[in-house]
C-alpha cells in the first residue's frame, strides 16, 4: 500500500554504487547547481538525458524510471502554463475563458520551458544519486559535510525502522480492510485514526525495545561511528578533473554566441 522508496537498486553491486558516496554527492550537487544556474534549456536537457541513460544502462527497469519522472513532468506542465500567462511580452495566443481574457506570451512560454527543463534536469540527477547510493551511506557522508552526529543518529534510526513499521502498518491496514473498515466515510475516518495511532504506539514500543537492545551492547547515550575512510585517491583526482569540465561546459553553453 505504500509507495515507499525502493532502495533495492542502491544496494546492488556496480561501479557507481561502489564509488565513495562523498564523491557522488559532490558531483550530484555541482550538477544540480549548474542546472539551476543555467539560463538555456539545452544544458538541463543534456544532464537529464545522461542521467536517464545511466539509469537504464544500470538495469533499472524503465517503468520505475518513468514512474519517478512522471511527478516532475506534471509539475513542469503546470509551471509552463502558469509562466506563459503571467509574463508580460508579445502575445502569441489569447483565449477567453468564462469571459476572461488570458494572454499567453512568447516570453512567458520560453521562461516556463526554461524553468521546466531545470526541474527535469535537477530531478534526474537526484534520482540517479538515490539509485546508486543507499540512504545510510548518504547519512554517513553527511558527517563529512559537518552535519552533527545527533542528526545522523536519528536519521539512521528513522531509515532502519521505516521498513519494519511500514510492514506492520500494511498488515494492520489490510486487517481493517478485510473487516470492512473502509466501507463508509465515518468508518474510514476512524480507521485512519486508529491506523495512525497504532503506528505511533508501535513505534514507541519498538523504541523501548530497541533502546534495551542498544543498552545491552554498551550504548551510553550516543552512537559511536566509524571514522570516515579517506577519500580514495583516484576519486579525488577524478573530481579534480570532472568538476572543471562541468564548469567549463556550463560557461561554454551559457556564453555561446547566438
Amino acid at each position: 500500500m505504500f509507495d515507499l522508496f525502493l532502495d533495492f537498486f542502491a544496494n546492488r553491486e556496480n561501479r557507481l554504487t561502489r564509488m565513495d558516496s562523498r564523491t557522488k554527492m559532490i558531483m550530484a550537487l555541482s550538477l544540480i547547481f549548474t542546472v539551476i544556474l543555467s539560463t538555456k534549456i539545452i544544458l538541463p536537457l543534456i544532464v537529464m538525458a545522461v542521467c536517464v541513460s545511466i539509469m537504464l544502462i544500470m538495469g533499472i527497469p524503465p517503468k520505475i524510471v518513468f514512474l519517478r519522472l512522471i511527478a516532475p513532468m506534471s509539475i513542469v506542465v503546470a509551471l509552463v502554463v502558469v509562466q506563459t500567462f503571467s509574463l508580460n511580452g508579445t502575445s502569441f495566443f489569447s483565449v477567453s475563458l468564462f469571459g476572461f481574457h488570458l494572454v499567453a506570451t512568447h516570453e512567458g512560454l520560453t521562461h516556463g520551458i526554461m524553468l521546466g527543463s531545470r526541474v527535469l534536469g535537477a530531478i534526474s540527477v537526484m534520482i540517479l544519486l538515490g539509485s546508486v547510493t543507499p540512504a545510510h551511506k548518504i547519512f554517513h557522508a553527511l558527517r563529512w559535510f559537518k552535519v552533527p552526529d545527533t542528526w545522523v543518529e536519528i536519521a539512521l534510526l528513522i531509515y532502519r525502522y521505516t521498513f519494519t513499521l511500514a510492514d506492520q502498518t500494511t498488515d494492520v491496514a489490510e486487517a481493517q480492510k478485510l473487516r470492512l473498515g473502509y466501507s463508509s466515510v465515518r468508518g474510514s475516518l476512524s480507521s485512519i485514526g486508529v491506523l495512525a495511532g497504532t503506528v505511533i504506539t508501535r513505534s514507541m514500543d519498538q523504541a523501548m525495545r530497541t533502546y534495551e537492545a542498544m543498552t545491552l551492547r554498551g550504548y551510553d547515550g550516543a552512537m559511536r561511528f566509524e571514522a570516515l575512510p579517506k577519500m580514495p585517491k583516484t576519486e579525488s583526482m577524478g573530481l579534480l578533473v570532472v568538476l572543471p569540465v562541468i564548469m567549463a561546459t556550463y560557461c561554454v553553453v551559457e556564453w555561446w554566441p547566438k
Partner: protein
Amino acid sequence: MSYLPLTVVALMAVTILGITAEPVYAMHISEGILPMGWAVLWFLASLPFVVLGLRNLRIRSEKEPHFKAMVGLVGAGVFVISCMPIPVPVAGTCSHPCGTGLAAILIGPSISVVVSSVALLLQALFLAHGGLTTLGANIFSMGVAGSFAGYGIFVLCRRMGLSFIVAAFLAGVLSDWATYATTSFILTGALHADTSFWKMFVTILLAFVPTQVPLGILEGFLSAGAYTFVHSRRPEYLGIFAKGGVA
C-alpha cells in the same frame, strides 16, 4: 485586471497536476524550481530551527538516554504515516498526510523540525518528492511552519480548556494549512515574475483550495484519532515527551 483569470489558469494547472499525479507533489517544492538565491535564503531561514531542535534533543537525551531512540522511532512512525495514501474526495485521487502536526504535538515542535528534515531528505532522494536545493524551503514550510502552527494551536486549545481531541484535530488541520500557505508563499516569491506578488500568492493559494482544504480536514481527523489512540492505550508515553524543555 482581476485575480480571477489567473485563478482560472492556475486551476487548470492544478487540475493537470491532479490528473497526472497525486496532490502531494504540490506540497513539496520540487527540485529545480527555486533559483539559487531563494534556495539559499530558505536554507538560512530554517537552519536556526534545526539547530534549536538538535540542541533540545541533545539536552534531553543527556538526562534520558532512551530519548533519542524514542525520537528516531516516532520519527519513523510519522514518516510511515506521511506515506500512507488516503483518498481525497474532491480530487478523486489519493494523497498523503504530512504528519507534522501529529509529530509536533507528540514530540514537540523543534524536534519535529529535525525529524521532518530527515523525512524530507529521504523523500527527495528516494521518491523524487521535493529536492536537495529546495530542502531548506521544504523544511521551512513543512517542518517549521507546520510544526509550530500545529503545536501552537494545540497548546492554545488546551489552555482554553478544550478537549485534547479537538486540540489535536485543530493541530492537524492548521499544520496542514500552514504548510500549504507557506509553500504557496515560497513558490510565489520565486515565480511571480511580472505579476504582482500578492496577486500571484492569492492565486496559488486559491488554486490549492480544492485539494488542500479537505486534505487538511482529513489530517485533522488523523491527528485526533491517533492522539486519542495513544492517549487511551499508552498514556505513559505521552508523559515522556510532555515534560522537559521541548516546547
